[in-house]
């Protein structure tokens, strides 16, 4: 069991290292965390990596993801004075944009779904 976790952790860290290497070679700034997401998804999709090869460690990380944000959240409280004089504006922007994003996304998905079902119907008629 212990060996299993060690092996899984090694694989995960290797993916992170590969992501850092990839990002270093890219001509533009790209977050290594997103590069690592893409590498992992591609490896799994291409069957080069099996889910079982990282499962336990990955599930532990996914379940307790918020732990890594605790120090950042503490730093955030230390930095609250950064908002001085801008707090009202900050809250207005975040609040309005949040609701707009939710409604806009819902609308976009419905629009795409309607367009696609219309296209499917047309396509279906042609074939008949």
């Amino acid at each position, binding site marked *: 069991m212990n060996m299993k976790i060690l092996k899984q952790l090694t694989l*995960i860290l290797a*993916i992170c290292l590969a*992501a*850092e290497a990839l990002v270093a070679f890219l001509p533009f700034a790209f*977050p290594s*965390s*997103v590069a*690592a*997401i893409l590498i*992992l*998804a591609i490896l*799994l*999709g291409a069957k080069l990596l099996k889910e079982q090869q990282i499962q336990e460690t*990955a599930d532990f*990380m*996914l379940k*307790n*993801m*918020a*732990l*890594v*944000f*605790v*120090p*950042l*959240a*503490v*730093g*955030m*409280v*230390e*930095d*609250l004075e*950064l*908002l001085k004089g*801008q707090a009202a*504006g*900050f*809250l*207005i*922007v*975040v*609040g*309005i*944009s*949040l*609701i*707009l*994003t*939710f*409604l*806009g*996304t*819902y609308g*976009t*998905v*419905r629009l*795409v*779904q309607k367009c*696609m079902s219309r296209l499917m119907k047309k396509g279906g008629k042609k074939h008949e």
Partner: protein
Amino acid sequence: MSKVFYDLCANPFFGLFLTVGSFYIGDLVAKKVKSPLANSLLIAMIICVAVLKLFHIPYEDYMKGAQYVTFFLVPVTAMLGLSIYRQRKVLKEEFFPIVIGCLGGSLLSMGSTVILCRMLALHSEMLYSLFPKSVTTAIAIDVSTQLGGLKSVTMMAVVICGTAGAILHPIIIRMLRLKDPVAIGVAFGTASHAVGTAKALEIGEVEGAVSGVAVGVAGICTVMIALFI
């Protein structure tokens, strides 16, 4: 006595212990009290800040140990790749609605932030900090830092988007009688990241699964859009 105490607090094990311990307590409480306000991160943060303030322990001393926890940000975020892979069936079936929905939502989130910041005449540092507010924390902080935003302000906006979203979105859904489970899922994941996904899971299985995929896809979309700025 007090010198021994403060020397001990400057030891990296103090920050590590406080971070992991407070999160453990936060997790226990969150499981007992089912409310979007009682999440493990928020409780852990309150415990840590309270201990630091109560005993006048400098933030720098705390970070000596806590930085090792932060270091795991990349591997932990990378695991979103696994959750996208696990939802490949939904992603395949609803590929275009999900991807275009995430892209549209991310554009709207960023666009409305720019317009609102200009209207309220907030300074550009604030604008860059708020720009990636709807995506998951690790990605938001990366994008914000790259653009020249303030990490802490971004973090605040991300936390608010998650918690406020978990409370507000169900009210909006009820008021407007929104029904489509896929569209609801994408909207949750795009507007309110992982915290929204937890709420979406309570609404329904499809909503939760789609929201989980949307968190990853919207994060990638946001990074792509930020490349052009």
